[in-house]
């Protein structure tokens, strides 16, 4: 997908792209952190027909809704596909014995039967972390397995 970037001197940057169904839309990013969501007029490609002004925080929430919701959707889909399989998100709390230790150290799969399939750190998804992946406080660990297995991983990450 092509995203066109235009400098707006003195204001910031403008990004635009066309959707598959033929609409053009984009985002104006101000240096002040303000964001504008713009939708172009279908009959006149020069003009914006809608312009929604968002604060930095509102823009983040919108981004999360558009991007983050997709992960949850996929997980829900996975659960539907395999009966009895549960996905759970476990946060690494301050004081967890695995803070600053690697995924390999937990031996989670051999001890509980459940798998750690992804870690969400600072809003970014690290899919299929390798055994040398090192946990940090605040990481959200995505676990898939049976009900008992995922519960066991949760208590394992909290108490060792």
């Amino acid at each position: 997908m092509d995203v066109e970037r235009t400098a707006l001197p003195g204001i910031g940057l403008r990004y635009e792209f066309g959707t598959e169904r033929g609409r053009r839309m984009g985002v104006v990013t101000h240096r002040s952190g303000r964001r504008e969501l713009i939708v172009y007029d279908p009959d006149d490609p020069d003009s914006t027909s809608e312009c929604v002004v968002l604060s930095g925080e509102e823009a983040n929430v919108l981004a999360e809704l558009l991007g983050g919701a997709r992960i949850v959707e996929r997980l829900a889909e996975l659960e539907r596909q395999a009966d009895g399989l549960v996905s759970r998100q476990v946060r690494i709390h301050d004081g967890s014995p695995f803070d600053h230790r690697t995924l390999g150290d937990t031996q989670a799969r051999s001890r509980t039967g459940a798998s750690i399939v992804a870690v969400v750190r600072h809003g970014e998804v690290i899919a299929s972390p390798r055994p040398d992946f090192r946990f940090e406080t605040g990481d959200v660990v995505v676990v898939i397995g049976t009900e008992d297995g995922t519960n066991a991983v949760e208590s394992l990450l909290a108490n060792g």
Partner: protein
Amino acid sequence: MVLFELGGVILGLGVLSAVAGRFGISPIPLYLLAGLGFGLGGVAPLDAAEGFIEVGGEIGVVLLLFVLGLEYTVGELFGTMRKGAPVGVLDLVINAAPGVGIALLLGWGPVAAMVMGGVTYVTSSGVTAKVLGDLGWLGNRETPTVLSILVMEDLAMALYLPIVTTLLAGLALAQASLGLAIAAAAVTVALLIAAKFGGIVEAFLRSPSNEILVLKVLGLVLLIAGLAEHVHVSAAVGAFLVGITLSGELAHSARELIAPLKDVFAAIFFVAFGLQTDPETLPPVLGIAVALAVVGIATKMTTGWVAARRAGVGSTGALRAGTLLIPRGEFSIVIAGLAVTSKMVDPKLGPLVAAYVLVLIVLGPLLSRLVEPVAKGRRRRKRKAAAKQRQDSLAESIG
């Protein structure tokens, strides 16, 4: 008594600004009118506070240009210049011409012609940027073109202001050319510093607390502005150049800290300009000002139209671009202010510019607002026509 008068004026400006905000217009014309009301021959002359307002007005110009300079990075300035030069030249020629012409017609001489050329040339970037934001036009195709014209005008001002200040200082030819040489050198050095050594200035200014940062920035700006004035480059230009030197995170925090100060002193600056103008001198020049304003609308519409069409924008966008360039404001007043205080030009120049700016700063945004319903109507008609055509061809294929 100073505090009482000053408080009254500033509170009054606050109320006026609220009124302007209510109707979605720029408060600048109201500030000017307030100044006219208080000044020579006005309804409530200020005696005690006048000295402060004068100095405050000077600080206002300096901060106005400093914040403007902060908006731009050197890369942007040079990049825009390379791309938009032909449009920039057209903008300069057809918009400065009416001002130069009227000054010569009135027999005010070459210096006044130079001043009036600047007054009619330069669009108020502050008002235009606000209109763009208010109307949600930042995404429109013609917007980068309009903004690049504003950037070029600001850069032209950085070169124009020192020249005009030298001329207004009334120096002998040899002295004047020396002054010009110094001015040109100062501008070049400042741009070079900004391009190559911006980091050093930023390292000096970087501060752990807002208090330290605001003191350092304000001090540096006033110091450089004063220095610039001393070598006959205007104080405003010095401040503008300091603004350009700063960029990135530092420019961002400096802008946030200085913005409230700028708002206060810029408002005082417009009052100070109004104060210098006797309302009784306005009616005699009103006819000329209106005629000049009509020409000014036509020339800016032409500039915007040509610039937008060159960038491949349709007619609606080209119309919008034209109206966006109409408002003249802070820069025109700054130029006229320099001329009036130097006493080198006809005393009628001040009132003429005041009236000219009053007309265009009100009409410009109004015309911009008018373009949209007209354009929307046209798009709707087009859409209906297309729908009807589809229907007809459908009916044909069935029948």
